[in-house]
């Protein structure tokens, strides 16, 4: 039987029409609407009108002058680095959005690293940020037995690859972070190719390295292109 009076149509069905015209309905809803449209001429007209309204809104939105967010990826990446260094602070003080777990399982808790970074952190430039993080890393490696730092029992998780005699702060000129679980055997040829020498590392897949190159910045940029490397930043320079 034909239904030509949309006011008598099932409200549950008519309220689905906006998502019918944008192809968003799942099968159950789609079946309901399709079945109704087979017998209701007026609702077919509503659908056509709805399509026109959707097109008008799309056109309006696409022509409207909206704020274009500038791309500041390098700056944002530096902030990410900073937030990773201060993860303990994030986990304790982050405001709740109601949709995220306030105590994530992946937070890395290194109090010494955190405090060292806090003391050194004056992130006016990317260089300062990287320096703070590198210095914090040095602090962790060179003072492994502080009260709140790694203890003798857990010091094995810090893999200092260089000899204890090395003056790290003088030799390291870049910091590199790789994907978790990336084997050193995978990294060695990449580092060799780019004249990168590991000065020290931690179990967090971060390496203090020395790049023997006239242009450290160019090497760092080349390293970033490798999909095993998630971060490469020069340190000690502006």
């Amino acid at each position: 039987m034909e239904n030509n009076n949309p006011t008598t149509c099932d409200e549950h069905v008519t309220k689905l029409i906006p998502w019918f015209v944008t192809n968003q309905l799942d099968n159950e809803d789609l079946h309901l609407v399709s079945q109704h449209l087979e017998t209701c001429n007026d609702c077919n007209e509503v659908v056509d009108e709805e399509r026109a309204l959707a097109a008008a809104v799309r056109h309006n939105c696409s022509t409207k002058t909206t704020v274009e967010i500038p791309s500041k990826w390098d700056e944002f990446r530096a902030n990410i680095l900073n937030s990773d260094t201060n993860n303990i602070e994030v986990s304790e003080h982050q405001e709740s959005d109601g949709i995220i777990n306030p105590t994530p399982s992946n937070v890395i808790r290194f109090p010494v690293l955190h405090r060292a970074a806090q003391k050194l952190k004056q992130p006016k430039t990317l260089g300062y940020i990287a320096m703070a993080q590198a210095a914090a890393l040095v602090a962790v490696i060179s003072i492994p037995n502080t009260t709140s730092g790694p203890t003798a029992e857990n010091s094995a998780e810090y893999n200092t690859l260089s000899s204890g005699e090395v003056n790290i702060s003088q030799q390291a000129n870049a910091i590199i972070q790789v994907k978790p679980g990336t084997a050193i055997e995978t990294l060695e040829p990449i580092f060799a190719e780019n004249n990168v020498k590991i000065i020290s590392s931690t179990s967090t897949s971060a390496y203090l390295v020395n790049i023997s190159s006239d242009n450290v910045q160019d090497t760092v940029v080349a390293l970033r292109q490798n999909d095993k490397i998630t971060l490469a930043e020069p340190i000690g320079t502006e």
Partner: protein
Amino acid sequence: MNGMRQSSMNNSNVENLAFAKHSEAALIKRLCEKDMKAFEELYEEYRKKLSHFISGLVNKPQVVEEVFNDTMMVVWQKINDFAGASKLSTWIYAIAYRKAIRARTKIDEPVGNENAAMQDISDNETEDNLEQGQLNRILSKALEKLSYEHRMVVNMTYFEGLHYRDIAEIMECPVDTVKTRMFHAKRHLKKALGGNIVDWL
């Protein structure tokens, strides 16, 4: 008929949907591994997507940028907590929505109300045979007069192409509220545009 056309389109999209799900799972895996390149791609993709979305809630360019940066920082820090119960895009939009609402409250931007959706467009703007440019201006005015909740439902449905369930999740409200907001918003927009709406087809 409209129903048959839609049904056939829906079936042909099943494979694309499966592919999209697979791609999203791969992307999430890379993000959980803290793959900086994957995150850079995500950052650039959502820089464009969220520009319009956030601008619908806050006007000041600086605030739009701050909301975007705050959103992406939460994504970076909490990606391992993303359980996959919703689409990644829904999760990101939901974070941006909350950040924008919070920013909006802080800077005292006018918050719409349910009555705003019922305000009328003056009669001389609903004459027939209006040029598309004029119609677009009338539509802009009509959208601005909607409460932000109504306007965001309209934008998310027609412009972002989101399902009502995703919109409900983003706005943290029942799906029936989304449908009702859409119903009232449409009534207002259709009234503002008069009989000229079919000109868009």
